[in-house]
């Protein structure tokens, strides 16, 4: 489970900008993973299964609008957001990337997360339940939006 916490964290990062909401969503995802575990079929890849549970939980969370931050923390997570002390520029870039993802609609967010996780188009298709050609079209569309956004903010001096 700990090995896969990063996946849950990054999915939560895409769907919640608020720290408290993000922690709530992570708790919800952990619970859902725990509860869905008996239904896990070994022929499926564990990461595919985990992304499905995480993204479905995140979308349910979004839909139910659970934005009331709760103070009670069952897991002792002081702060999940880790500053990049050694590289402020990377931190700024990451913030920009997060902001870009936050602005996407809920389904594009899912696609974007999977793309950034470096999942193959086949894996993305398996997780989302779309055909590979559909994924390819969508990914290209979002990539071009992302490229435009990052060029706008960070014009490459070599170009």
């Amino acid at each position, binding site marked *: 489970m700990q090995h896969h916490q990063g996946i849950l964290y990054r999915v939560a990062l895409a769907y919640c900008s608020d720290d408290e909401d993000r922690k709530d969503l992570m708790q*919800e995802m952990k619970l859902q993973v725990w509860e869905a575990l008996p239904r896990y079929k070994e022929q499926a890849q564990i990461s595919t299964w985990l992304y499905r549970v995480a993204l479905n939980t995140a979308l349910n969370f979004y839909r139910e609008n659970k934005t009331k931050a709760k103070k009670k923390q069952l897991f002792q997570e002081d702060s*999940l957001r*880790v500053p990049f002390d050694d590289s402020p520029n990377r931190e700024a870039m990451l913030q920009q990337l997060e902001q870009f993802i936050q602005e996407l609609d809920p389904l594009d967010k899912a696609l974007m997360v999977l793309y950034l996780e470096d999942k193959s188009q086949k894996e993305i298709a398996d997780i989302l339940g779309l055909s590979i050609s559909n994924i390819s079209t969508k990914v290209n569309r979002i990539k071009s939006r992302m490229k435009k956004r990052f060029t706008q903010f960070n014009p490459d001096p070599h170009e």
Partner: protein
Amino acid sequence: MNDQDLKSLWQSTQVKMDQHGQIAKENQLAIRQLQISHFLHTMKPLKIFTLLMGILWVGIGGKVVLNIFIHAFDQANLFFLFSALIQIALTAIAIAVYIYQLILIYRIDISEPVLATQKKVARLRSSTLWVTKILFLQLPVWTTFYWNESMFDTSNLFLWCIQGMITTIFTVAAVWLFINIRFVNRDKFWFRWIFNGNEWDPILRAMELLHQINQYEESTEA
């Protein structure tokens, strides 16, 4: 910054988390606590209370109406009897639909592909509007249950005109709402006015999400 840089930047979040050792230690006890907390969180007292009151209303009301039908039909005020019957039947249908939806939502497997799962959940959530539509159909019978045969003998024309107008307005409103409470009207003032409040937000979001899923599938198929 190219695609690969962005991917490694995104994935570096995990690396940093591991390095700082800030990953929470989970154990059985914490999971158990979380399950209890989750269960209590989903049990919204007002909703449960309303549902229980509805079941009680249908149970007691149904028994009374059924008894009148069986044992005292000849002496009964038929306006009251049929109004009550329609009201109780519609409430029972609304409760049954609501409970059926809750069960289906609870049974959905969230480890299935995301779009298919979300489509199922969003469709079920947004169909909660059907409960409201059904309940609105009761409006006219609230204006007829107190009628009785003696009213026809003694009441004057003016009072009957007022009564007829009220019943007609309620009937037209009920049918109109039943037909028009639909996603396409979500931005209309009257729709927002009826479905105003936190309780309705998840339903409206579900409808929005369902719309997005359909668009998503259509746009990628195109």
